[in-house]
């Protein structure tokens, strides 16, 4: 009963906060709202026994990415945003597309069939701790993808520098 209560609270908060994120006029408000949203999602991860991801969610998303957003917003100094239109012209069309997609996903949920269960039951993870279990798989079975991700990040760093750098000439 407690678990359901927590989930309902988190779900309601996540839904409302996400709607707020996309409707705020001032991007700074959106980012702040999103920060709160990410904490809630992290909490949701904890209820799903994914403590490590909860930590990563807070550290990377809330700590790094959102700060980057905030940094860009302040860097660009979007003054005219306060008076400009918030939505594109045909926004009802976008809304309809989103709702349609949502309905399609909801309808398709019924046909979802769970696959075979894995070895990492709650008890196993409890005995080994979540982080250790994740690390074991990550550095054995998923070592190559992990290394590829490091390269992706490296490319992103270089790309971001190249894109954001001021042109030296002209």
């Amino acid at each position, binding site marked *: 009963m407690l678990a359901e209560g927590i989930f309902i609270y988190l779900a309601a908060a996540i839904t409302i906060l996400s709607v707020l994120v996309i409707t705020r006029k001032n991007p700074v408000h959106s980012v702040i709202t999103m920060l709160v949203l990410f904490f809630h999602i992290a909490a949701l991860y904890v209820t799903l026994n994914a403590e490590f991801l909860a930590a990563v969610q807070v550290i990377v998303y809330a700590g790094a990415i959102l700060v980057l957003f905030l940094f860009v917003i302040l860097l660009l100094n979007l003054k005219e945003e306060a008076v400009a239109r918030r939505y594109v012209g045909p926004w009802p069309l976008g809304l309809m*597309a*989103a709702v349609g*997609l949502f309905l*399609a996903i909801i*309808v*398709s949920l019924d046909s979802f069939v769970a696959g075979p269960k894995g070895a990492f039951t709650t008890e196993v993870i409890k005995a080994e701790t979540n982080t250790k279990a994740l690390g074991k798989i990550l550095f054995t079975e998923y070592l190559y993808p992990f290394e590829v991700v490091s390269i992706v990040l490296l490319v992103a760093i270089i790309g971001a520098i190249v894109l954001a750098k001021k042109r030296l000439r002209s």
Partner: protein
Amino acid sequence: MDSYLLIPFLPLAAFFINIIFGRTLIKDKAHWVSILAVFGSWVVSMMAVAEVLQGKTVNADLYTWITSGGFKVSVGFLIDQLTSVMLVVVTTCSTLIHIYSAGYMHGDKGYYRFFSYLSLFTFSMLMLVTANNFLQLYFGWEAVGLCSYFLIGFWYEKKSASDAGKKAFIVNRFGDFGFGIGVIMIFLTFGTLHYIPIFGAVNGMVGQTVDFLGMQVDLPTLIALLLFCGAVGKSAQIPLHVWLPDAMEGPTPVSALIHAATMVTAGVFMVARCNPIFSLSPVAMDVVAIVGAVTALFAATIGLVQNDIKRIIAYSTVSQLGYMFLACGVGAYGAGIFHLYTHAFFKALLFLCAGSVMHAMAGELDLQKMGGLKKYMPWTYLTMFVASLSIAGVPGLAGFFSKDEILWLAYSGPSPVGKLVWAIGTIVAFLTAFYSFRLIFLTFHGKFRGSHEQEHHLHESPKVMTIPLMILCVGAIASGWVGIPSLLGGGAHFTEFMKPVLGHLEGHGTHAEEWMVMAISVVAGLSGIGLAAFVYLREGDLAATVTQKFRFVHQVLWNKYYVDELYDFIIVRPTIWIAKNVIVGVTDGKIIEGIVNGVPELIGRFSLWLRSIQTGMVHQYAAVMAIGAFVVIAMVLLW
């Protein structure tokens, strides 16, 4: 046998060498290549003729050209009596005219081009005469037409020359169309295009009829007349004679070689070659004879009044070609070929002499501006005089024997129109003598009527030109001696020689009749010369008086019976009208251009419309993506 290959292919090699290297490397040495090639060809031809004289004929396929089902054509050679005569004519005239051209064309900027075309022509003509099947004949036939076009329009900067070239080509299309159909009919009838099997099987054709344009037509007559169509075009007979006088726009050696001695006689050669087919159809034979006779008379009368030295000889050529057809038409193929053979020498000689005169007169063609050239150019005068005597049929010279043979066989032969064409031929003999000597007297006798600069410029042509004249002059005198009739103590060797190919037509008449026919033609010729002398050698203006008196006749003749004007009115103008208004205006302008421009226009408009999808707006792309995802999920769910 293999050495016979050299006969056509030496000139072909010369053509390629000259056309490829002529502009950059050979330049004014181009004549050496061509002359050596054609001379080599002449030597091999003479060897071939010697073989044939011993009775060894050759018929061999060298190379299979086309095989398609039952249709099989090869490149092959048939060297028999008829071919050997043509080889003599073509290679001899060709060699001499090549040499003459080296002098005549000296300094022309298209020198190498001239010689390469001349070599190509020689190749084509030799392919034509040595062919052993109809397709190779047709190939040579069209190739000589092409070379003729090149060479008539050789000075293409001159509008009249390029027009004349086009005219020759287009007029020949009419004839060649019939010829082509004729060849197809032969293939359909016999299933092969080789001469020997066809001529062996022609008798199976007798009595067959064929549905042609809805009428039942006698098959041999149809084929013969279709083939004759081609001959009419190539040999400039009525009604397709109009191109030959205009062809005189080309350089004079070309006129001598192509438009007098060799190419234009291809029609006669072809009719003689196909004599087994023609002989099956009395109707076709009569048509050939009548067309020949009428053309002979028609061209001779035009020749009477012309003032252009080359055109007179051109009409003379048309007239003499008519004579040859007349002979073929009465069945005297041997006599026709005999006349072809002698005519080649004296007519080439006449043209080359005319070229020599033009050379001296700086290109002047008008007889009325010449006169008294005798003392400036004695060799030209002498040789041209002999040639004119020969064409006039003065006894002892080449023209006499061949002409006499034709007239006698026309008179005495079995042809129903024989007497008629004999009468016409005799009149033509008189007219020929008259206009030939009118030409001589106006050119070489009397006082010079041109300008002072021209008079100052007058000179005899260089040796490279006069020596071929002398050699041809020997031919004009002596080439007939191989066919002296038995009446005059000769053996009629020529027609005997041709007998295996052309058959032999026996004249049925007494010796007295034969003497009479001969006497009449001689009298006609001599009186023509005499009348010309009477009119043009005496001081006074008898010619002008007669012209005044018969103004209408003179006008008609002067305008060549208005044939060109008639064709212009009934063919050229309607054709141009249709081309302009129907083809350009509707077919090309509306339909073709409509499709060609319409399709891209349509695609362009569609693309313009389609382009509006690509707005550059990220939102729309994303929305399309979302809708697409929705559709995909919906499809997965619903199926």
